[in-house]
Structures are given as C-alpha cells and as structure tokens.
C-alpha cells in the first residue's frame, strides 16, 4: 500500500492535499505534485480533499494508473517539498470542470 498522485493533478495542482498533509510529504513539480512514499504515513487525509480525485491508495488504483506508483517514487526524490498551499495553475478550474464532467 502506497498513496500516489496521478494524472488528474497534471496542469491543475490545486494543493489542497499539501494543506492537510500531517507530515509534509508532498513534493512540488512544475505541473503537479508528487508524494514521497518514505515520508508519507498513509493517513489518507489528502485523498478526499483533492478537487480532481487525483490521489489514490495504490490498493485501489485502476490498472491504467498503476504506472504512477513508479512516477511518484522517481520524481519525489528530485523535487523540493511543497510547504504551503499555492494558487492552482492557470486553467485549473476549467480543467477540473472537464474532468468532473468526464467522470
């Protein structure tokens, strides 16, 4: 079991997750955030707050998103910690509406 951020975060980066994370395990990429599995305590506080449902417990991960476990691991090592909530990326709200209408 690992908690991972998946493709819906890409170009949205709402960062509600950063705000609720009790251990500061999110890492800040240009287009999205990732979870540093070594720091994450698997409390799942971030899963329900994501506006685009991008965060999964790997146990519940749909098959087409499984590659994100490796992607999170790879990028988390390279990126700085996300310490505070940020404004979403430009266009995030439009993208969110599209994602919601698709689900």
């Amino acid at each position, binding site marked *: 079991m690992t908690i991972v951020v998946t493709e819906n975060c890409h170009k949205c980066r709402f960062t509600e997750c950063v*705000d*609720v*994370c*009790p*251990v*500061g395990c999110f890492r800040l990429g240009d287009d999205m955030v990732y979870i540093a599995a070594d*720091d994450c*305590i*698997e*409390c*799942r*506080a971030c899963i*329900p707050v994501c506006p685009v449902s991008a965060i999964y*417990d790997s146990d519940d991960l749909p098959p087409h998103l499984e590659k994100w476990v490796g992607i999170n691991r790879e990028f988390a090592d390279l990126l700085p910690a996300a310490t505070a909530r940020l404004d979403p990326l430009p266009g995030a709200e439009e993208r969110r509406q599209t994602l919601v209408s698709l689900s």
Partner: protein
Amino acid sequence: MTAPNVAIVGSGPSGFYAAEALLEQHPTVRVDILDKLATPFGLVRFGVAPDHPKTKAIAKAFERTAENARVRFLGNVEVGKDVSIEALTGAYSAVILAHGAAAPRRHPLADAGLEGVIYASDFTRWYNGHPDGQSLALPSGAASVAIYGMGNVSLDISRMLMLDSQELAATDITEDALRALRREPVQRVAIVGRGSLEQAKFSAPELRETARIAGWRPVIAREGLSERDRALLEGHVTADDSRAQQNLEVLKEFVWATGQPREVEFRFGTTIEGVEGSGRLSSVLLRDNTGQMSTEAQLLVLSIGQVVAPVPGLPLDESRGIIPNAWGRVLSLDGVVIEGLYVVGWAKRSSAGTIGSNRSCSRETIANLLLDLGDDPTDPRQRIVGWKDLYRRKAVDWNGWKRIDDEELARGRAAGRSRVKITSRAELLKIATAENRRSALPERNKKDAI
C-alpha cells in the same frame, strides 16, 4: 525587551502542530513544550496501535520541530502539580493547553465493580507501555470479549486481541501484554454499538484490516439492524455520506454471525444494558430491536471516547469533556476570554478525528494567539522568574529523550523487535539523566528565555 515565549502543555500531535505553526508564523517566538512524562509524542506513542508503525513515523515530522533552536522539550514536568497554571500564565506570553483528553468518558457499566470491565484507554495504555497503565491484568480465560463503541479505537483493540502473537512480537507492544495475549487466546470478539450502520465511526481501511485478519471470520449480527441497515447491506440504497458508504462496501463482504469461535462480530443498533457475574464478568446484557438477551463475555472494553482530565485552575465543560473555548481562546465558565490561555487538540474539540485533524485545529488557535500577541516581535510584559530551578532539578530535555529512544531501539534490535518500550518512570528517568547533568538548564541551544 525579549522575544515572546510560549509554553505548550503536552507534547502530542496537537502540541507539536501548535509549535510548528508558531515557528512558521512568528520570527522570534520561543517555545517550551512541557510534558508530564519523560517521553514526547503523546498518543503517537501511547494511542496508535503497535501494528501501525507507519502511522508512528509521524514522529519524524515532530522531531524536526523539537530540534529547532527556538524550541525546548521539558519532559517530566506536570502542570497542576510541579507547576501551576497561574505560574505558567505569569511566566509566558501565552500558554497553550495541548494535554488532550486523557480520562475515559465514564459509563455506569464500569461502576458495578466487576473484574473484566475496563475502559479502552486502560487497554491501549497497557499494550502501548504507558507508565501509569501497567497494572492491568487481563482476566484469565477471556475467551469472549465485547467491545462497546464503534470507532477506530475499537478496531485497534480488536486487532490486538485477534492477531497472531508471532505478528505482534515484531511490533513495539509491551512484553507483558504480548505474554498475556499469547497465554489467553481470545475465541470471540463482538464489537457492539448503539448506532446504525451509517453512524459507526470506523474508517474503511481500518475496518478492512480487522476483517482480513488470518484465521478470523468477520460477521454481522442480524439482530439490531434497522430496515435501512438491511437495505444498505443488500445494495438497494446507498449511504448518505462517503465514509459510511466506504464502510458499507467492506461490511457487504461480511457474512451473518453464527456464534461459532473465531468470529469477529459487528453488532449494530444494540445497547449493553448490564453486566453479570460474581466478582468477575461472565456475561453482558444486550438490548436491541428484538428484545433483551444475555451473551457470554469475560472481558468488556468500553470504547466510548475520552474527556479532559481536570487540571486545577482550568475551566472544564463537563458535559462535552473539553476546555471551553472560542476557536482556541480559552473561556471561563461564564464565557469570558481568559487572556493568554489557549487550547488545541482533543482538549479543544473532544476526542475525535485523525492525527492530521490536529494540524488545522492547532493552526486555527495559533492564528488567534498571534493576533492577540500583536505585531511587536518582542514581549513587553515583565516575566516572573524563578523557574530555572524546577527545570534544572526535574525536567528531561530532548537529549534525555534521545537517550531513552536510543536505549529502546537498541533493546528492540537485540530482541528482534521494532522497539522495546521502557515502562517504569524510575528507569526512564535514570536513562534520560544517564549522562552527568552538569549543564544547568535543558538546552535550547545556549540561551534560555525565562
């Protein structure tokens, strides 16, 4: 003019999140974190179940805060005993109560005086090695256990009773508890709650963990279920909120209870009305929508929440079991703000939520505290001195805790376990002060602020 100083009473999650928020949001504030025990982290050490090491890793985040040069840990200092609230509010710019809800919510079933009726915190403190909780003796031959209350603490307790002792042996459960649980293997566990299926406060991952323990069958009692509960289980309707729906997805996989051994039974809509036995518990009296019945139990664990333990000099809202407050500002019983006194965590909002819930809770309080403190980065008030002696004489500092930590981890390595907890206060203090304490005050990297 000196930098403001803040005392935080209690070093559990809410206390550490308060310290973290203060450091982030104020450039010069100094923080003393007091704890009545020699060990920090509160319920991370004494609440989180031994088989959840990942959750306990949250302590790493708190260590970063504790090792900040503006923070001091002062363990083994009990507020209300070693030092009064009045003395604290006189000596610090602000005092934050983060001492949690350490007393079990009383229930009349415990007043019958039967051996085998205990509170959940008696049980969790025992297996987690709390220095004040080591006198518990499991009743011998406790084949059937009833747990009253439907939250995650009930699930923690169920796992400790059901897990194979080999699995428990690798954790940091105390050796006493491990031996007792190995000697007295439990045959039946019933988790009983008054509420409906949707009112149960479990979280689904924890519920799934209990359901998947090898050698045990998760079952639901037909009795006590409402029409709606049945419709939910059969999938005719969906639950009102997402947590209930997630629990429901797990519960749907359960079968009906048959009363056979090695069943963990979930019994909704049921009140425990009485306890029976001579001297020790032999059965509990249940009432549900089909009437009253007696069922065998040698151990009843009351898992119905916690309340703030009274501290002399502090107001207490007895009905809610919290310190009366408005967004973290402590109020007198007349509803007047008490200047300089703040509250966070379970003492502020009662015993509910996950560890992470304390982060936003503490941030709310700190926002108000900093507003009250104003923009001036210094604190103009005169401070009462004369404390150094208490701290010098009694306090266990962060280095003292690190010595305890190292010793426990070393004993764990030697025994093939994650950690061997030390439970005697005297031994904890001896290890904490092992090195000659010539240095006057517990260090806050040189200068002290009191």
